[in-house]
């Protein structure tokens, strides 16, 4: 799909929600997700007619910008209230709610590149090679980051493993 073939507004209307979902998983915060998406769209806008694959371009821009944002704003971390509200309600959840809260809390504790790798591999369903291309890193780094991230998730979110075990049993 070429940027020539689809007007910017139509692209945002059609593909924006999917990109926003990925941005939300990356940032864990609705406002930051919208900031990240808009910033990446703004980067694409001046060269829209020359971009051959707008979805790939904006997605790559968004994921790499997410990592570099965090590098630049090393002292900034999001503390979304919704999460706090949710975490403080520690009883009466159904399984899905518990799982969602466990994942959200655990993701917060991952460095941004690890979070990005997990979102690309297990939400966007990209291969290791495709994830490496999006992030501009080697396949080996994707493998090691995935391994480290999952290992860390098992530590900080044992609930996830328990849910898995329960579902299997």
């Amino acid at each position, binding site marked *: 799909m070429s940027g020539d073939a689809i007007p910017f507004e139509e692209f945002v209307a059609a593909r924006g929600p999917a990109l926003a979902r990925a941005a939300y998983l990356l940032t864990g915060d609705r406002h930051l*997700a919208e900031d990240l998406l808009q910033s990446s769209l703004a980067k694409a806008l001046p060269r829209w007619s020359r971009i051959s694959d707008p979805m790939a371009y904006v997605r790559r821009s968004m994921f790499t910008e997410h990592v570099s944002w965090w590098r630049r*704003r090393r002292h900034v971390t999001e503390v979304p209230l919704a999460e706090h509200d949710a975490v403080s309600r520690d009883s009466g959840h159904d399984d899905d709610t518990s799982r*969602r809260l466990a994942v959200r809390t655990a993701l917060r504790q991952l460095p941004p590149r690890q979070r990005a790798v997990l979102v690309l591999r297990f939400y966007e369903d990209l291969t290791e090679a495709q994830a490496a291309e999006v992030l501009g890193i080697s396949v080996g780094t994707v493998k090691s980051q995935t391994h480290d991230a999952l290992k860390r998730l098992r530590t900080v979110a044992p609930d*996830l493993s328990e849910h898995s075990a329960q579902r299997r049993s």
Partner: protein
Amino acid sequence: MTTELRRAFEDLAAEAPSRPTAWTDGARAIAGRRRARRRAVASITAGTLAVLAAVGVGMTLPLFANDATAPSTQTGEAPYRIDAPPSGTPSVLDAPIRRAAVLATAGSTTFLVDADGTGPRTLPSLPEADGGSVPGASDSCPSALSEDGARLAWVRCSPEAEPIDSLFVLTLASADVRVVEVAGLEYTATEAGNEQAFSLEWSPDGTAIAFVGANSAAVLELSTGRLSPVPAGFAFEAAWSPDSSRIAFYDNVNTRPEVSAGVFSRDLSSREIVRAPLPRAESFGGWVWGPDGDTLSAVVAGGGVSELLLVSTDGGGEVRRIALRGDVANRGAYSTTTKGWRQGLAVLELVGRSRWVTFDPETGTSQPLISTARGVWINQVPAAILGEGPIVRAASDGSAR
């Protein structure tokens, strides 16, 4: 677990916002601002070329200067300005300086700016025997200036995540490198898989350095090389008290609707928890210790409101909230973080807007302090230099470049 993770991602993603029209408008607005900024930079570049031409015919111009000596700045506002170092900039080994006022990065080049006004210095390629990697090299973790700007410390960040066994300290005036053998704790700077999460924080008295990672932290006593672990759950960032007797670490695991910090004694044997309740979704911009020794400050933002928090370090729960408005507020993709205090005023970095400003908590007004050229990032202005007096003094004779 990956199957469970996929399901959880799907569930979580359903909470994402969906406002395509707003995003289109927002993207166009951001693109417009960036276009305007590029035009401004282009016109400034023309001015800079004229200045360089003047230097070429014999005038001397400090790269970074105070009001008294500054050339016309790009913004015409900030009294101090940092540009990328020109080619041919000497290394700090070849042209030693007494103190550095700024540690900064331009592209892949990390450089210092002399506090005495003689201009920038690049960081040297040190021989392996003298300390291994270059502070700015890819296999090196971020370096840090001591709070008086006289020394630069760094460690090697091994891509194989090997424990840190040495810390290197370069004394800028003498170009000597001291190697401190690290003992007592195996600490890996790349434990989180991302060396950018790691930083060094000098104690103000220059006798200790905190190792601060995304998920763990430790304190190194320079006299003994002993590295002591900070209790789990406190990491990500650190702030020393002005008298070096205490150190605050970000509370990395608190999930309550508040930002908090653990304020530890120097030997890490005791601590107070300080908390600031947050009434809404917030982003948080780093704790900084106030010059009074009794206050931690930070910028928080959320729901369209930005505030400077002042929190008592005695754990008593007293929190003062001061609204940040106009240019100093978080806006869109831009954020504001606290960098320190200067003559009773908070110093804020307007991230993404190439500016540091002073902010008066009493009046709510701000004044430009430092501007940077596009592509230049200030990593650090040492606290003692930021705190009082000129950040960069006028060069005594203008020939030091």
